[in-house]
């Protein structure tokens, strides 16, 4: 099997990740729940993972790394905890439904910005869209459909200048490219553990900058202050009601160590080369359409179609006749498809990871050449 659906989840996990999860399941108690040795071992792993996450994102406060089940949960916590119907929020067409649906639910007034020619959000339009009641800019780092990148450092500057919260979705970039929270000046980073970070599904989290106070989405067991009627307000406990997924967090810790050992820049370079190789290999094939600006610094994704062929049909052929896994359809990115005029056709997305090889890309090029030619003949 050739697996090119890493933007959904990375398929091959390092042995160290699998072993860490197994070890945790064999020998760990509940983190933060008691002082027996099994519980303490679990708490130590969770704390070590907070430190690794903070280090990965150049965030100087592990106490403000909050663990969740995924990026969607992180974004729901951030958006519901900061935004209400009186607020105005600026976002972009590049967003996943994990940003858009929580925003729609708040009832806040939204300005949804288009992409500019670079593929990212138009920064002049962003600044011009700011209103007296604008509370936040909420956007993705990398489009999950086209791999196009937002200039998050520039967005962070604008947010700082206008005293706005900046909530950044790094689901597609964490582990694949360098993310420096201090440089970006983000108020909140929302990440998932099971994509570029190579951890298990069911892991993710937020990094919450100092001074940002998020109203908890859920409250309950905290392991401390049992007789207080209110949930603790201190991070990370404030946003971590209930038992943590320590088994998953143990795997996430191993995943982050694994990618740090390889080096983010090396991973990024390899994945960009694969995207470029595929783009160069299929760009000139008649009937092939590639979406996105295809900048040299785009993410690890290539979005394409063969003329008007239904993307689901193409993906199904790739899977069942050539054992090539892709993702087709809408990708939970409705506004991007609206913008690209691909709502009905959908798009076939190839997304890469460090373990993918150039010969796998070459095989895809060969198959696409054949299929595009068939479409032309038909």
């Amino acid at each position: 099997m050739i697996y090119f659906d890493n933007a959904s989840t990375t398929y091959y996990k390092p042995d160290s990740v699998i072993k860490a999860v197994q070890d945790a399941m064999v020998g760990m108690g509940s983190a933060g729940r008691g002082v027996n040795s099994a519980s303490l071992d679990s708490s130590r792993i969770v704390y070590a993972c907070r430190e690794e996450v903070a280090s990965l994102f150049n965030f100087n406060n592990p106490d403000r790394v909050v663990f969740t089940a995924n990026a969607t949960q992180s974004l729901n916590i951030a958006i519901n905890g900061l935004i209400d119907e009186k607020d105005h929020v600026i976002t972009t067409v590049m967003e996943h439904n994990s940003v858009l649906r929580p925003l729609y639910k708040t009832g806040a007034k939204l300005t949804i910005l288009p992409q500019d020619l670079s593929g990212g959000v138009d920064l002049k339009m962003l600044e011009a869209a700011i209103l007296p009641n604008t509370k936040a800019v909420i956007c993705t780092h990398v489009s999950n459909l086209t791999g196009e990148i937002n200039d998050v450092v520039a967005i962070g500057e604008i947010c700082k200048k206008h005293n706005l919260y900046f909530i950044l979705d790094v689901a597609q970039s964490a582990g694949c490219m360098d993310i420096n929270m201090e440089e970006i000046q983000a108020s909140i980073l929302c990440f998932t553990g099971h994509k570029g970070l190579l951890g298990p599904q069911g892991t993710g989290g937020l990094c919450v900058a100092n001074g940002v106070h998020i109203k908890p989405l859920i409250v309950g067991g905290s392991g401390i202050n049992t007789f207080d009627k209110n949930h603790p307000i201190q991070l990370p406990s404030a946003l971590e009601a209930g038992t943590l997924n320590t088994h998953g967090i143990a795997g996430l810790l191993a995943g982050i160590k694994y990618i740090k050992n390889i080096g983010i820049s090396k991973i990024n370079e390899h994945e960009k080369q694969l995207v470029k190789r595929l783009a160069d290999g299929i760009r000139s094939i008649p009937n092939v359409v590639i979406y996105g600006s295809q900048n040299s610094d785009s993410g690890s994704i290539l979005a394409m179609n063969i003329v008007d062929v239904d993307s689901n049909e193409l993906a199904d052929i790739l899977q069942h006749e050539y054992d090539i896994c892709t993702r087709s359809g809408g990708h939970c990115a409705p506004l991007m498809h609206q913008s690209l005029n691909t709502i009905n056709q959908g798009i076939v997305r190839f997304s890469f990871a460090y373990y993918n090889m150039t010969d796998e890309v070459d095989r895809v090029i060969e198959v696409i050449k054949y299929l595009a030619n068939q479409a032309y003949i038909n």
Partner: protein
Amino acid sequence: MLRKKEDKFIVVFETTTNAMALEKHAKLAGSKGRLIPTPPSIRAGCGFAWCSPVDEEILIRQLIIDKNISTTDQVIFNI
């Protein structure tokens, strides 16, 4: 009484994360202390506390300052 009581330096935290941070740094500094359940007479509930021999009070207090660890209590306690 199950154990002979003696004075200890006890630190109580706002969060489990703070407790884990102090444990890490205290062990690196060679402390003989350890995490214990918070004595109910200091704070009722089910949180963690750091318990060190009293002669480590200065070391632990300094670590708390140096590593910017949030605490709710730092007391000598007969436990």
